[in-house]
């Protein structure tokens, strides 16, 4: 399946991602079509990869695994299958419990996730689906669950970032991959986002 924009797929600029795409195409390997977008807009991608690395991996009071779960949860709510699978795989790799990750995505309330984590996911869920409705009390609830300001800052930032990626990827038609390819990609994402 191709994206909606063949003019984008045909116009790869030289660089890391163009090399990855060309190698995969030559070998007939399944690859992440998001690379086509990255290779099409390398300058944008340079800033985005540093932004993503900063938001998702900078040492802070919320773990990288929990930030990946926020990315997957946001993506699930935005019905972006590619991002959901990619970041569920990364969260599973970092948290070490794939069944728990998928249980939280598919039915947060009945999952075995700790209440503290549920409170944070409920909050970012509201930032995704009802931004104008977010009020002080919502944040107070997250603080009462035990999260500090820094964690809330990073949670909102991760949620906002994936509201970007989800739209970019679904509107251009990037398809999901096989479960094996997503699992492999998740291991890569667990190591970080900057390739250049």
């Amino acid at each position, binding site marked *: 399946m191709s994206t909606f924009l063949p003019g984008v797929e045909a116009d790869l600029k030289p660089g890391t991602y163009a090399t990855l795409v060309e190698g995969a195409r030559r070998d007939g390997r399944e690859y992440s079509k998001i690379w086509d977008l990255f290779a099409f807009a390398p300058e*944008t991608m340079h*800033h985005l990869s540093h932004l993503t690395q900063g938001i998702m991996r900078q040492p802070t009071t919320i773990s990288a695994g929990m930030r990946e779960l926020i990315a997957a949860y946001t993506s699930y709510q935005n019905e972006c299958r590619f991002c959901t699978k990619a970041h569920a795989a990364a969260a599973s790799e970092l948290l070490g419990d794939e069944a728990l990750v998928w249980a939280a995505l598919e039915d947060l309330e009945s999952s075995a996730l700790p209440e503290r984590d549920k409170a944070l996911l409920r909050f970012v869920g509201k930032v995704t689906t009802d*931004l*104008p409705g977010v009020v*002080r009390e919502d944040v107070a609830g997250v603080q009462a669950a035990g999260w500090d300001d820094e964690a809330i800052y990073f949670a909102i930032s991760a949620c906002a970032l994936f509201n970007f990626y989800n*739209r970019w990827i*679904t509107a251009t038609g990037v398809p999901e991959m096989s479960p094996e390819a997503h699992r492999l990609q998740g291991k890569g994402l667990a190591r970080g986002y900057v390739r250049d």
Partner: protein
Amino acid sequence: MPHINLPEGLPGITSAFAYRPETAKPMRELAEVLLRGPNTLTSAERETIAAFVSHRNECHFCMASHRAAAAHHQGGDYSVVDAVRADYQTAPISAKLKALLTIAGKVQIGGRRVTDADVAAARAEGATDTEIHDAVLIAAAFSMYNRYVDGLATFTPTDDAAYDPMGRRMAHEGYVRK
């Protein structure tokens, strides 16, 4: 009042930037490329898309500041961007930009809403795949910036006059400052 303890006295996104400078740098650089980098869409058109999406997301700070930036790319004239905000279908803009705003409006709600027919309609009005992609990219990016600004409840000036000099700087000096 902001939801978390952000630096005081700074409007909107600048207080969130001051809270975490490491995140601010790539966010500013991204805005610079998207809105002021080389592109066949003019900066006025791109700022109009940014203001339009922010309006739909009810993010007053982003709407008002990018509205002012769009105006300052047009000699300080607010009439076109305000006509777009009121009803882009009757605004004095090109049919191509109207088709791109239709796509941007769908991206604001959710990327899956964009259809082959929307893309075909934009192509029929002369939009290239690159321009369609860039309209999607800007609409998606403002779905991020709007959540960053309003999720944190940054300080939002209510007086339109506060945004005019801000928009002038955004248009003429850009987003990456020393």
